[in-house]
C-alpha cells in the first residue's frame, strides 16, 4: 500500500514540477510548485521523517511560496497572453485540480495507514526528538557554521539593498 502511495506521489511531484517549469504565467508556476512541495512532504512522511515533512509544508509551501508571490507582485510581471486576462480556461485549472485530487486521496490513504501511530515504531522512523538530538549533537558545529553564514548573508543583503536605494535617489539620503 505504502509503495503504491509512494509511486503516485512521485508521479504527482514530477508532473507538478514539470508543469511549474513550463508555465508562462508565474502565478500558475507557483501553484504547481506548491503541489509539488505537498507531494514531496508526503514522500518524506512515508520515508519516516515527519518533521521534515512538516517543514516542507510550513517553510517551502507556506513561507517561501508566499515570498515568491510577493516578489511576483512587486515586479508587476504582466500576465502575458490575452487568454490569461479573460480568466483561466479548463486547460489551465484542470491539471492542478487533478493533481490536488491525487494529493488529497493520498493524504486520506496515509491517514489510514499512518506509520507513526502504530505501537511498534520501526527503527528507521526519525521522530522530531531523534532528529533534534542528532542535529544539535552530531551536527552542532554545522548548525553554528550555517548560522554564521546566514548572518553574513543578511549583512550582504542589507548592504547591497541599501546601495541600490541610494543609487536611485542621488543625493537624497547623504
Amino acid at each position, binding site marked *: 500500500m505504502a509503495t503504491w502511495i509512494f509511486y503516485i506521489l512521485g508521479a504527482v511531484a514530477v508532473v507538478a514540477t514539470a508543469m511549474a517549469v513550463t508555465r508562462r504565467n508565474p502565478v500558475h508556476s507557483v501553484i504547481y510548485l506548491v503541489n509539488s512541495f505537498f507531494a514531496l512532504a508526503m514522500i518524506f512522511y512515508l520515508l519516516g521523517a515527519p518533521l521534515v515533512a512538516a517543514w516542507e509544508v510550513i517553510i517551502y509551501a507556506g513561507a517561501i511560496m508566499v515570498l515568491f508571490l510577493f516578489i511576483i507582485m512587486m515586479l508587476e510581471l504582466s500576465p502575458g497572453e490575452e487568454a490569461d486576462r479573460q480568466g483561466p480556461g479548463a486547460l489551465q485549472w484542470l491539471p492542478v485540480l487533478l493533481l490536488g485530487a491525487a494529493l488529497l486521496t493520498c493524504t486520506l490513504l496515509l491517514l489510514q495507514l499512518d506509520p507513526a501511530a502504530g505501537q511498534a515504531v520501526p527503527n528507521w522512523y526519525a521522530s522530531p526528538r531523534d532528529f533534534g538530538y542528532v542535529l544539535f549533537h552530531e551536527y552542532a*558545529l*554545522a548548525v553554528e557554521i550555517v548560522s554564521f553564514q546566514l548572518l553574513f548573508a543578511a549583512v*550582504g543583503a542589507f*548592504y*547591497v539593498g541599501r546601495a541600490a536605494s*541610494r543609487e536611485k535617489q542621488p543625493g537624497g539620503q547623504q
Partner: protein
Amino acid sequence: MSALELQSLLPQIILALGATTVLMLGAWYPSRKWILGGVVIALFAALSAGLMTPAVPEVGNLYSTGSYARFFVVLWSLLGALSLLLSLRYAEIHDLPGSEYCALILFAICGMSLLSAATSLIGLFLGLEAFTLVFYILIAFKREDSRGAEAGLKYLVMGAVATGFLAFGISLIYAASGSFHLPEAFAGLEQAGGMRPLGLAGWALMLVAIGFKVSLAPFHLWTPDVYQGAPAPVTGLLATGSKGAVFASLVPLFAALGPLKADLEQVLWLLAALSLLAGTFAALPQRNLKRMLAYSSVVHMGYLMIGLLVGGSEAHRALLFYLISYAFATLAAFGVLTSFSRVDDEPQEYADFRGLGYLHPRRSSLLAACLLSLAGIPPLVGFFAKFGIIAAALKGGYPGLAVIAVLAALTSLYYYLAPIVVLFMQQRDARQLRRGCRHEYFVLALCFSAILLLGVYPAPLLDLLTGILP
C-alpha cells in the same frame, strides 16, 4: 561538542568571532581602521594555527585539525591579511565601509580554512558555501559600479546553480554509501552492482560544481566577467584563496577515493586538457589585464588538475607547490593593479598601462616579474612549479597531458609578455602619476620576495609539504 574539540578549532573560531566582533563594533565606530584590525585578527589566527597543538585530530567528524589543515589555515589567513592590507587605500578612495568589508573578508578566510580542513562531505559543502556566499557580496561591493553589480549577479546565479549541483551530488553519494565521512563515503562504490551507478552520478554532479568553483574549462565562462567587475583586491583573493581552498580540499578527497578513481580518470583528463586549451586560446587575444589573468587562471587550474589526476604523494606535493606559487604571483599582480588604481579609474586595458614602466619602474617591474613567474620563467618560482607538475605527469604515465601542458606553457609566453611590452616598450603617454601607499608596497615586496626566494631555494617549502601531506 566538547571543550577540547572547540579548542582544537581555535583558528577558525578566532576568524569567525573576529569577523562578527568587527561587524558589531563597526556599527558604533565606523572607520576604515577596522581593516587594520582585521589584519591583526587574521595574523592572530595564523599564529594560533601554526603554534598550537590540537587536542583532538578531528572535530565533530567534520573538520580535521591535522598539520595539513593547519598549514592551509596559516596560508589563507596570510593571504587574507595581505589582501586586507592591499584594500586599505582602495577602500578609502572608493568609499567602502571598513568594518563590513573587513568582516566579510575575515569570514571568507574562515570559510576557506574550514573547506581545506574538511573531512566530510558536509564539512566540504559548508566551508565552500561560507566563502562563496561572502564573495557574492564582495564582488558587488563597489556601490556606484554597475559592472561590479553585473559581475556579482553573474557569480550569484551561476554559483547558486553550482551549489545545487553540489548538494545533489553529495546527497546521491550519501544515498549510495550511507556516510558523509570521507574514506567511508566512497566505500562500497567500488564493486559493480548495487548503488554504484548512483554514486558515480553523484560524482559527476560534484565535478560540475567543483569545475564551476575553480573555473575549469567547460564551466569557466563566468571568470573573465567576474574578474573584470570585482574590486581588484577582492579579485586577488577570489583568484587565489577561493580556488586554492577548493584544490586544497580536493587533495584529501582524491586520496580517499581509492580504486574509484579509475572511473573518474577519463573525465578528469578531459577537464584538465580542455582547461589548458580553452584557457590558452581565450587568453591570446585579450587586451584587458584582468580578463587575461582570468583566462590564464583557467590554464593554471588545468595544471593543478593534472596534479590531482596523477595522484600519489609526489604529484600532490607538486600540486600544492604550484598552488602556493600561483597564489603569491597572482595576488601580487592584482596588488599592483590595486596600487595603480585611482579614485576615478582602475587600469585594466592595456592602453592604460602604456609607458607606465617609465613613470613607476619599481611596481611595473614587479608586475612584470609576477607575469613572468606565472609564465614559468626561471629563476622565479613559477618555473619550478610547472616543472614539478609536468614531471609528475610524465612519471604518472600521462605523456599526452604533459605535451599539452608544455605547449600551453610555451604559448602562455605570448599573452604574458604582451602587457610587459606595453608597460616598457611603448611610447610613454601616461602622464598622471598613480600613487600607492606604503601598505601596498609592503605587500608587494613580500609577495615578490616570496616568488623569488621560493624560486631560488624551494627545498624548505617542499620538505614542509612532504611532511604535511596526508
